[in-house]
């Protein structure tokens, strides 16, 4: 009789070094691991709960301004540097890692309206209420030296916005008209007007670098091409747009923040109707900035909240607020897509995480795997009511909560009325207008 003895090859269970993980042979026979759906569901539920537990997005508050923060600018080459301009004309340069101000300069009299860092990161431009454009060196002056701009251009009218070209020494300002400037000249190389008296924002397209977009006070958004002598097109909406931001990864999409509490994403080739209407704010939206990955954007609103939207999501995926944060005037998404900076009325700049529950810092491989797995599970079970309920639950300040409710009631009432009117009139006389079409008045060529 032959006796069979258990024998295993040590290669199958002995690890090569003691730093390796213990080898665990596994049997994937499905009969040995039953209830896969229920088990994964439980895991997904736990992952969702933990995500909510770990969602602590607020990182730091940078204080030091003596007036509301009116504009901010990201450094193009350094992640840890942020520039901010306040309503008293002061510009501060911040070190984000140390949470401290490294430089302060009195740039303008009155508001600092706009600020932008040159593509090389060596200097930055500011415009202010004193009708000047100033160029400053990025390095701080030596001890005892006076802060003097590299260059000052005195304009005829007040400038309200500023943006720099992605690769050339060209920048654009807006005020009573949109001007394109060469850095070497003291007069604009091109001026665009189109029967509008003032503009609030001008932005270069980061991909098709010769295109520009601007928001005008006649409720319109105007597109330009730097190479042409004429503007390209404009769309007039029901209410005024405050700012506009191009998608950095998709050349023809831009999003504008509107006074009617909404944001609109447009395809610049088809301005007749926006691609998406992003709703959720309960007051005017003041600023918008895209994530550098082009997948999401962040918006700042007069209702004292910052919201994050998916680029094609009708509603926000996240809302940030604190008790002390007042009207948020400007917001920026950091260039590594991990952080969000918001500047608000009450003189503070706040640093937030872009993903509220994300662990910062280096992840161990197993940690990363676990995070990926739980993310996938959340995605897989996202339609299940319990998981959705937990994942979507957010705390809101009382007034915003009530305002949201009120707005919803108003909207329902309006749509009900429209329905009733349609019901009691001749068929076809009152057309159904979709939400997207409602907000566009005309497109002017």
């Amino acid at each position, binding site marked *: 009789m032959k006796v069979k003895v258990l024998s295993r090859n040590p290669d199958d269970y002995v690890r090569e070094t003691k730093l390796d993980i213990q080898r665990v042979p596994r049997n994937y026979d499905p009969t040995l691991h039953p209830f896969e759906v229920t088990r994964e569901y439980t895991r997904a539920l736990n992952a969702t709960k933990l995500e909510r537990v770990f969602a602590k997005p607020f990182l730091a508050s940078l204080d030091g301004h003596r007036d509301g923060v009116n504009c901010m600018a990201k450094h193009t080459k350094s992640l840890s540097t942020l520039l901010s301009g306040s309503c008293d004309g002061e510009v501060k340069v911040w070190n984000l890692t140390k949470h401290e101000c490294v430089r302060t300069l009195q740039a303008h009299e009155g508001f600092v309206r706009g600020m932008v860092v040159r593509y090389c990161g060596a200097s930055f431009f500011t415009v202010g209420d004193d009708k000047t454009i100033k160029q400053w060196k990025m390095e701080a002056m030596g001890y005892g030296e006076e802060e003097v701009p590299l260059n000052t251009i005195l304009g005829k009218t007040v400038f309200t916005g500023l943006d720099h070209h992605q690769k050339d020494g060209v920048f654009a300002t807006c005020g009573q008209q949109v001007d394109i400037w060469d850095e070497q000249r003291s007069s604009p190389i091109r001026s665009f007007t189109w029967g509008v008296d003032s503009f609030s924002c001008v932005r270069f397209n980061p991909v098709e670098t010769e295109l520009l977009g601007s928001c005008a006070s006649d409720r319109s958004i105007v597109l330009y091409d730097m190479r042409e002598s*004429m503007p390209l097109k404009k769309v007039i909406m029901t209410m005024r747009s405050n700012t506009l931001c191009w998608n950095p*990864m998709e050349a023809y999409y831009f999003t504008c923040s509107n006074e009617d509490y909404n944001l609109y994403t447009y395809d610049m080739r088809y301005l007749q109707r926006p691609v998406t209407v992003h709703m959720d704010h309960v007051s005017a939206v003041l600023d918008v900035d895209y994530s550098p990955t082009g997948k999401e954007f962040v918006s700042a609103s007069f209702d004292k909240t910052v919201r994050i939207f998916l680029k094609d999501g009708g509603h926000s995926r996240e809302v940030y607020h604190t008790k002390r944060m007042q009207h948020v005037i400007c917001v920026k998404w950091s260039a590594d897509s991990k952080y969000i900076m918001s500047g608000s009325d009450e003189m503070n700049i706040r640093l937030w995480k872009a993903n509220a529950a994300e662990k910062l810092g280096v992840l161990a491989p197993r940690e990363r795997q676990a995070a990926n797995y739980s*993310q996938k599970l959340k995605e897989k079970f996202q339609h299940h009511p319990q998981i959705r309920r937990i994942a979507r639950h957010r705390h809101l300040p009382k007034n915003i909560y009530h305002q949201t409710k009120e707005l919803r009631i108003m909207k329902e009432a309006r749509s009900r009325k429209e329905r009733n009117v349609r019901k009691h009139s001749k068929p076809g006389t009152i057309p159904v207008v979709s939400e997207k079409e409602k907000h566009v008045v005309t497109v002017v060529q």
Partner: protein
Amino acid sequence: CEEQELNEADENITSEEEEYGCEDDRKRQKLLEAISALGGKRKKRLGERSEAAVQMSEFTVNAEGEGDKIDLSDLIGTMDKTPAISAKTKNRLRKLQKSKKTIECPLSKQETERIQRDVAFQKAATEVSRWDGIIKQNQRAEQLVFPVNQEPSGPKPMERVVTSWKAQTPLEQEIFALLSANKQPITDPILTPTETASLKAMSLEEAKIRRAELQKARALQSYYEAKARRERKIKSKKYHKVHNKDKRKVFLKQFDEMVKTDPAAALEELNKMELARMQERMSLKHQNSGKWAKSKAVMAKYDEGARKAMQQQLEVNKELTQKLITSLNNEEEEEGVDVEVMPDFVNDAEQGLDSSNPWMRGKLSEDHTEKEISDIVDLSAEGAGVAENTAEEEEDTEKVEETEEEALLREFDSRRKLRQAQEADVVPSAAEELDASDKEAEELTEFTSLFRGIAEQAEAAADASPSDTKTQLDEGLMRIKTLEDVELLSQEESAPEIASVQPQPSPATENLPHATQQGGKNRKRKRGIELKEVLTKETKVIQVPLAPTVEDKEDSDENLDQRGLIKEAFAGDDVISDFLRDKRKQEDAGKPKVVDLTLPGWGEWGGMGLKVSRNKRRRFRIKTAPPPPRKDERLPSVIISERKNSSISLHQVNSLPFPFENHSQFESIICSPVGRTWNTERTVKRVTKPKVVTRLGAIIEPMAREELMRDKNHGSAGNAK
């Protein structure tokens, strides 16, 4: 135009006559002037007209033909004369002359601007549309990695830098030619062939180490040799004997290793040994038959040392004649091994080894009687087996011990059974005294009868005489496995409160209906279920082999404690009866009910003491149809509920989510697990890949135009493939 008008004015005049008429006119004018000049003062003329003109200049200067528009015909007239004009242009001009359209007046400023804007917009739109492909591709991509074109950090290898640079000046070219001629590396291999060869060769340190090793080995060898020489010179026999013995031991050890590592050499050694053995067996060298041995044998009576020496010789013989057992010839050895293999029932006993929960020990249906007998048989066989294993001298005593133990065990068992029987007799009387409320008792009998019905089918073979103590169930659902268990059992039995927890044995059932009839009063009684009645088979008591289960003393003590604790904690629980009650309740709930809808006084006389007529009652009593038979009807130990559980629906998706088109799609997504429990590592990695990957601390630049070019190249490459 003018000419035409004139022509219209005097139609009857031909072109030649017209000219003539004009001249006439002029003459007449002059005449009139002359006449007017004759009379009175002369008027200052505004302008002198030498010929008739429709338009008059304000500067009183009139050029001839000023008012007229230049006609194409005027130009064409000279055309024929100039030879420089080509025939083509001539033709064109002629055609132009024939067509009599005017150029439209220019558009307004607004209009032109609008057109310009439109054109510019079209241009920009087409330019921007080039990105369509990339954008769509990125939207569909499973994973996007940012920054888009990452360059590996750290210093670049020299060759990569060099490849982009080419020798251009004549000097450079000359140098490169020289380099290539001498097999010097230019781009990819940084090292020359000789250099790589030298790298492959030994380094200096390595060589030094090697030399030191060799030196050491040589020294060791010389020491060893010296030692061996010294040892060979020793004359002491005893020394050599001991030495040889040691050597042999060492050799045996080595041989064992050799069997594993070098079987061929081992085989050779084995052969040698076999030969030595054969020689030993043939010779009488160590057989105590030599001269020396005989002399010693004489001395042995009186001398201890002599006796020892003889014994040693015999031992040597034994050692030498012993057959070597190795894995090489294990085929022959198998019988020997077989003896040690445990009988199968040992494994059976071990099954539920560490369940410390007493409730989990019983088996509801198991062929008890047969097993028990076989167990006992096994036990004795086992005992015998164990005894056989031991050395022959000890055999007898061992056997005695074993049988003693067994006898002890059996004694315990019989004693226990006796006690159970006694208790069984006692408990029903106690039950009578205490007794339960009638309803409960009835229920219980119902259960038991129900289960008896079910049991009867299965129980045909089993003898079910209630008085037979052998078939009775052990109290509690404890499985006994070790001696300690048995001891514990006896302890438990001595403790009265624990004994009361045990379910009553069979005689209770017999007395129960009797009891209920007797005591109609509502007295609370501890609800007990008659396991004997309810269960088709008895739980198995497994006797455990004595020898093989080796247990830690401490461990078993702990176990005891735990078991005792759990028993105490669940003292009041009667899980089985609870279960049966539950099942009964569920069955009752599913039974059809008769709904009585009769209203007294309707359709007939009403009042005190009047009965509702039978006819009416029959009409208004509604019987619902009986439900389909329950699935667990014939399964005594299961409850199968077919009701929909509303608590689950809280967790279920109630409508098909957006991107899915039908239920099967969604279900397939949900049903395919992602975790590592169900998938291989690689699959998990692939499936759980994040959609967007960003690097910590890396600036993500906006999409660059170069990306477009790259995409185009890729596209063409893809097409080529």
